């Protein structure tokens, strides 16, 4: 599948991509140090942006937002140091700063992956409790009104996969 077609599948209009690309190019031309630092610190987010095929790229969005959160102090330091390429490279050479940014991205990824699972577990638990309540009420009614157990209730909702 051609790349353009795949991108169209994600829901981004072609014109918007060009605008985004142009804006990125202008930003890189105006402040190459900032661009370099951002590319370095937000590399996991950029990779996930490329890999996330889901509509709205929720996983990439979480990774990027988490990465940006961890990159603010570095950007501030870069701008205090003049926003040069050297300053950006110095900052990128600091493994703690780079690791923090990338760990934040990983955290964003982890949150985006775990949140649906935990939500599913919560929803299933709520359904199980409700089904149990209903079955108990049904049994109570059957016993009270001497009804034959000829109509067994539906099976329990399946557990979350």
């Amino acid at each position, binding site marked *: 599948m051609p790349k353009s077609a795949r991108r169209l599948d994600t829901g981004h209009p072609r014109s918007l991509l060009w605008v985004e690309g142009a804006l990125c190019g202008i930003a890189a031309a105006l402040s190459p140090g900032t661009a370099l630092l951002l590319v370095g610190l937000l590399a996991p987010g950029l990779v996930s942006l490329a890999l996330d095929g889901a509509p709205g790229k929720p*996983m990439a969005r979480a990774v990027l937002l988490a990465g940006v*959160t961890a990159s603010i102090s570095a950007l501030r330091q870069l701008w205090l140091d003049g926003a040069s390429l050297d300053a950006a490279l110095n900052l990128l050479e600091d493994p703690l700063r780079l690791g923090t940014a990338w760990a934040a991205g990983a955290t964003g990824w982890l949150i985006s992956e775990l949140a*649906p699972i935990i939500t599913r577990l919560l*929803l299933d638990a709520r*359904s199980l409790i409700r089904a149990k309540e*209903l*079955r108990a009420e049904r049994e109570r009614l059957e016993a009270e009104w001497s009804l034959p157990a000829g*109509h067994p*209730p539906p099976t329990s909702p*399946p557990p979350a996969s």
Partner: protein
Amino acid sequence: MGTSLGAFPSSSAAGVKLLNGQYEVLTALPLPGAGGGLPAFAARHQPSGRTDFMAVRASPGAPPRANALARLEGEVIPGLLTPLAHGPGPAPEGGEAYYVICPEPPGPSLAAPAASGSPWGEAEIVHYVLRPAAHVLEALKSRGLTHRAIRPDNIFSGGAKNPVVLGCAWAAPPASLQPAVFEPPYMAMCAPACRGEGSIADDVYALGVTLLTLALGRTPLAELDTEAIILRKLSRGSFEALAADAELPSLLADLLRSMLAEDPAHRPSPALLLDTSTARSRKVTTRPPRRAQRPLTLNASPVWDVRSLAYQVATHPEPGARMLRNGAVTDWIRRELGANQMASTLEELVRWRAREGGTEDRRADSILVLRAVAVLDPLAPPAWRGILLWPDGVGPALAAAMAKGNEELAELRDFIISHAITLWAAQQGSRVDATTLRQQAQQMELWLRARDWETGIARLAYALNPLMPCASPLLRGRWVISAAELLKALDAAAAQPEVRRLAPMDTHLAAFIAVRQDHSFYLDVWEAARAGAPARLVLAELNLLVAVETRNNLGPLPQLSAWVGEHAKAALELWHSRTRRAALQQQLQALATGGRLQPILTLLDDPTALQADAEGLQHALARIGEIDAELAQIAAGSSTRAALAERIGREFAAGATLAALTAALVAAALG
């Protein structure tokens, strides 16, 4: 009879059951031969202390004569042991028996050896037997009653030259204890229970045979069995059969000739017998039937005359019907007897039979025989499948058949539902009141009509025999003739554990209540309920019992209410609500000890509460439907929940990271 009661202690102590509140039956003091064929015991009139009474014991299969007892009770007819009271009393073997209280006979019966040893003279017979008996018969006739038990062993004499006294004839169905020789042949050919009330002319006949016996000093035809006696009387005429060889005084011979006439209409009335010279001049008798030159063989017996033929056809209906259908009977009648009119009538009946049913149609054959016998001998009783019975003998016949529990019950039922009485009456012309008989037959059919034929036949038996006791096995050993006594008897029976295991209602009890309490509606409901749910049956049973309780204003019946309470638990099944059932059961237990049935019925048969219970059930079912739908939705909602969880999870991740970014920006801005 001279019973010696001097040494018999007066049992005025408490606990002695008094019949009618007055008479004590002394079961330890039997009076042999005094009861006219039934067991008799001495009886004491408690208020006066007199002991010159006897209690004649009835048997359940042969109930006493309610009509005669009702009309004669308390009346005094000289020369007759009239009933003074009747009712249940203690049986010698334990339990209850039914007794008719009469004055004690004045002496031994005419059949006692001292009285029957030598022939009586004509004057003695006329003065001491004929006239007193005729007086009694005239008194009975004026009351529309008959005696039907006139024979030497039921006629008593207080000594020589004393007028005789007719014995008790009220404790058994009419003529049921009469030997064949003392009955007209058309009565004798019926089974003892089937003879009916008859007419006073039948008493005149029995009196005639009794006079003959006294005149001869022996019972005529004593050496013959019943069938031989009947056939001899039919073929020769009663007088010829009984007295042909006897040398009788002329007055007595003339009297007996008319008294023993075959046709009841030809016999002198009791009033006429009082004037013997007028009575002897009466020369109206039925001629003996014409004898054929050659016999007709029916059932291997040669038949020589048309009356004997009618009897043989009636008692052997299957070969009789066959010979009627194949024309053998009509050919014989036409050829041997020259009775062309009778033969033509029979041929018409056979043609009707051919139109009405196929060759194997048993009912059509039975009707053919019934009508043919009526044509052959108009004096003969209705004949149905070998059973000969007079229309007013249906009641006692049913009682006897029910006591024996034999197949005769089914035949009697067919006799009624086939309109046999009406068909027979139609053949009789002016001899019988066809309209009255038809109405009686319709009434019988009405009683008989029931879902279950056993219930119908029981209802009819109780309706036709007012003093027949309820034959329910629950009341074994008790003689219950009224609905009020029924509940008391059931209350007493409920004390027995083996009875308590059974339901307090059965076919006999239901039919008995329907008749004696006039509650046919509840019988119909009960019969319908028998095919349905046990709970409905319990309510129907309760309705029958309560109908008796409320109408008779009875006192507490603690044993019966406890018994009913135990069995009424099945009615709780009508309620669907378990809570309500539990509450009702508690109330039922409390009411069962109260001795009243009405509150139990009110508790269980509450339409408003039942309606509310039914509505509650409907609501519960609707709620269960909703629950099932919701459970199905939960079971089928897995993919929906997965999609929702995915969406919420992603949004949460975005929101959390965005919140973190915002916090970081704020922190950076604040320095």
